[in-house]
C-alpha cells in the first residue's frame, strides 16, 4: 500500500471513528432515548378491550344485583350502578313483587352488550355509552356508564329503553373517542336547557312550553294523559299536582360523528296529593306506594317520586331534539 493510499484510508477511518466517538457522547440520541411523549387529548382514555371488559363486569353485577337477595344483592348493585341509576335499581328490586316487569332492567341482557361510544380525552367525568337488548322486549336499552374521577370505576348511571322506530346516529371511532358537550356549543339547544324545558312540559296542572326545543313524543303524551287521569280519579278526595325537576349532575351530552349529540338526563317527577278535609284516602290499590311507605291510608297528604331516564338526539345546528329512549321507575313515597 502506497503512502498516499494509506494516508487517505487513515483519514477516512479517523473520520468514521471520530463520528463514532461523537456518537458515543450522544448515545441517548443514537439509542433513541427521548423525553416522554405528550398525552394525546384526541384519543379515548380506555382501549376498546378495557371498555368491553368494564361492560361485562358491570352488566354481570347488575344481573347479580337483581337476581339475588340480601347483602349480596346490595353489594352487586353498588358495583353495577351509581347515582340515580343505583337509586332506581334499589327501588326496582324492592318493588319487584308489585312491579313484575323488569323489561327495562339491563340485568336481563348482560350478554354481548354493544359498545357505542367512549368519551374523548383524559379529563373527568368520563363516560361509556352502551346498548343491550332485553330478552323480554324487542326494544334495545341505552346505557350511560360514568366515572367521575380516576379512582372511581365506571358504573351504570342511566338506562332507558329505546322508543319504537327510534335510532342512534353513529359516534366517532372508539379509539378516537367522542367529545362530551358541556355547554351546548354547536348544538341546536343546550342539553340542560332541553331537559329543563322537557321537564316543565310534563307538569300538572299543565304549563304550555312556548317554542319547545323538542319534538312532541308519545312518551310525554302518555305521562301527561296519566296525570290528567289521576287528577280526575282523586278529584273528590284530594288535589293533585305534578312537578318535574332535572336531577343535578345527571345530564351528559356525547357528540356524534356528524356533529349531533346524544343527551342523557334524569328527571325526578313528584306527584303530590293534598287530601281534602275530613277525607281518608285508601292507598291499598297502589301496591308500590304501600311497599314504599307502609301506609294503606292517608288523611292529609301523600307524594310519590319517580325517576325518568330520558335520552334525546339533539341536532347540531337547528331543529328540535327528538326523544329516542325513556324509562321510569318509582323510587320513593311518603304519606300522612
Amino acid at each position, binding site marked *: 500500500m502506497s503512502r498516499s493510499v*494509506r494516508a487517505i*484510508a*487513515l483519514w477516512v*477511518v*479517523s473520520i*468514521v*471513528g*471520530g463520528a*463514532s*466517538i461523537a*456518537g*458515543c457522547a450522544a448515545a441517548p440520541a*443514537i*439509542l*433513541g*432515548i*427521548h*423525553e*416522554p*411523549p*405528550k*398525552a*394525546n387529548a384526541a*384519543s379515548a*382514555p*380506555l*382501549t376498546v378491550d*378495557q371498555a368491553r371488559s*368494564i361492560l361485562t363486569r358491570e352488566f354481570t353485577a347488575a344481573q347479580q344485583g337483581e337476581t339475588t337477595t340480601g347483602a349480596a344483592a346490595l353489594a352487586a348493585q353498588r358495583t353495577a350502578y351509581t347515582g340515580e341509576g343505583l337509586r332506581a335499581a334499589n327501588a326496582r328490586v324492592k318493588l319487584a313483587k308489585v312491579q313484575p316487569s323488569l323489561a327495562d332492567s339491563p340485568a336481563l341482557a348482560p350478554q354481548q352488550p354493544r359498545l357505542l361510544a367512549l368519551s374523548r380525552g*383524559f379529563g373527568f367525568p368520563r363516560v361509556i355509552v352502551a346498548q343491550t337488548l332485553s330478552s323480554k322486549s324487542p326494544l334495545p336499552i341505552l346505557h350511560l356508564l360514568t*366515572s367521575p*374521577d*380516576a*379512582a*372511581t*370505576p*365506571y358504573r351504570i348511571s342511566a338506562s332507558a329503553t329505546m322508543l319504537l322506530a327510534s335510532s342512534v346516529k353513529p359516534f366517532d371511532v372508539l379509539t378516537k373517542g367522542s367529545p362530551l358537550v358541556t355547554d351546548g356549543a354547536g348544538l341546536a339547544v343546550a342539553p340542560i336547557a332541553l331537559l329543563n324545558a322537557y321537564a316543565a312540559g310534563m307538569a300538572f296542572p299543565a304549563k304550555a312550553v312556548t317554542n319547545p326545543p323538542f319534538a312532541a313524543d308519545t312518551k310525554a303524551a302518555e305521562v301527561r294523559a296519566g296525570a290528567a287521569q289521576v287528577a280526575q280519579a282523586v278529584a273528590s278526595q284530594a288535589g293533585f299536582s305534578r312537578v318535574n325537576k332535572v336531577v343535578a349532575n345527571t345530564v351528559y351530552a356525547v357528540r356524534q360523528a356528524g356533529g349531533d349529540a346524544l343527551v342523557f338526563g334524569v328527571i325526578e317527577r313528584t306527584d303530590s296529593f293534598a287530601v281534602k278535609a275530613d277525607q281518608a284516602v285508601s292507598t291499598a290499590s297502589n301496591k308500590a306506594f304501600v311497599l314504599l311507605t307502609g301506609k294503606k291510608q292517608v288523611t292529609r297528604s301523600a307524594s310519590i317520586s319517580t325517576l325518568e331516564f330520558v335520552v334525546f338526539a339533539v341536532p347540531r345546528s337547528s331543529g328540535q331534539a327528538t326523544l329516542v329512549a325513556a324509562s321510569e321507575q318509582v323510587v320513593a313515597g311518603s304519606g300522612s
Partner: protein
Amino acid sequence: MAVLGVALAVFGAWTAVKLGPSGDAHFTATSTATGAIVVGPEVLNSLNVPVRVTATRGDGGAVWLAAAPSTDARAVLATSAVSTVKGVHFGAGTLDLRASGAGDLPDITTADVWRLLAKGAGSAELVVGQGRGPETAVVTSGDATALKDVTMTLTWADRSWFFEALAAAVIGAIIAAFALGDLRQSRPRQVSAMRPGPRHGR
C-alpha cells in the same frame, strides 16, 4: 488516534458482551421502603421499544402490577408513600429509587384506569409497549400485607443494539490498527532522516 481506537473497540466490545446477542439491557433495584413502587414515563417511555417490568417480593406475597396513563396513575396515587424509579445506570445496571409522599395507599386496584395488569404470587411481570402516550407502572401489594423488600427489574430489548455495539468495536479496532501501523512505519523514516552523529573512538 490509536488510543481513541482502542477505547472505542473496548467500549463496543464491553457493550456487546453486556447486551448479549438478544440486545437485552437489564436494570435492577430493591426497595426496602414500605409503599408502592412507581415507574414514571420519563423512564418507561424513554425509548421506542417495549419495556418489560418485573416486580418480585422478598416475602413471597402477592404482587399487583399495572400500567395506566400517567395523569390517571398520579391521580390515584395522590400523595401516598411511593418509591419512584427516577433513572437508570447502564454501567452498573441499576435503577435510582426515590421515596416521596406519606400515608397509606388507598385501594387503587378497583380503578378503571389500568390499561395493563398483572398479578402473581411472589412476582408479576408485564410488558409495556410504546405509542400510547405517557404511562406509569405501579407495583403494590396484591394482598393485605404491606409491600416492602421488592426487587424491580426493567428490561429493554433491541437486537440492533448488539450489532451497533459490535460495529463500534470493529471500527475502533480498525482505527487502532491503522493508527498503530502508521506509527510503526513513520518511526524508521524519522530515524533514517537523522544525520549520523560523530563517532567516538575508544
